[in-house]
């Protein structure tokens, strides 16, 4: 276990993979960071020295990456803006439906979640016919 930038604890993996456990850093960012810190990407995260860790932290901070809480907040703010101005995209987010024009008659299960069957519910105000 190693700690980078406070809360992130990447495990017993190669450092180029372990860096991807930081929210906001993916494969390409992790490669760039390690190149800048001049660290071999194949070292296991636990085998890094204090100095190497600080080099990585330095490289991340210098690169001006938006990561972790800041990134989550930024995404949340973007959603909130769309929702408060009541534009089409915001409404789709509010209803939990796909935002980018996908079909919803079928599929769209990622956004809609598990299927929910709604049975027939009689309209209480409807006129009752002869059965």
């Amino acid at each position, binding site marked *: 276990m190693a700690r980078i930038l406070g809360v992130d604890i990447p495990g017993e993996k190669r450092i180029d993979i372990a860096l991807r456990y930081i929210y906001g850093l993916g494969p390409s960012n992790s490669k760039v960071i390690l190149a800048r810190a001049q660290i071999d990407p194949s070292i296991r995260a636990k085998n890094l020295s204090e100095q190497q860790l600080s080099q990585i932290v330095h490289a991340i901070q210098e690169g001006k990456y938006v990561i972790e809480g800041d990134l989550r907040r930024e995404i949340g703010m973007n959603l909130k*803006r769309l929702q*408060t*101005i*009541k*534009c*089409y*995209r915001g*409404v789709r987010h509010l*209803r939990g439906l796909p935002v980018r024009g996908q079909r919803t008659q079928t599929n769209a299960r990622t956004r809609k979640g598990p299927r929910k069957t*709604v049975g027939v*519910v009689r*309209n*209480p*105000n409807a006129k009752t016919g002869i059965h």
Partner: protein
Amino acid sequence: MGRSIKKGPFLDQHLQEKILKAKETKSKAPIKTWSRRSMITPDFVGLTFNVHNGKLFNPVFVTENMVGHRLGEFSLTRTFKKHGAHTAKAEAK
């Protein structure tokens, strides 16, 4: 692909004329428009538009963070239907 910056934001000519007129006379009366495709520019802010959705004109009051969107985005064209009980709460939506 996005629109070229060189061209500037798209705005229907007839809508632009209406806005200039409203600005000149300082009238706050809603501007009726069918031009859903026009982009909201900073001089729209504070005006109210009645934007056609194919059937009705929905009132849209333009605020600052709507700039850059299009008028049509605020006037939905479809009715949202849901299965379930016909309660007063569900009907109101």
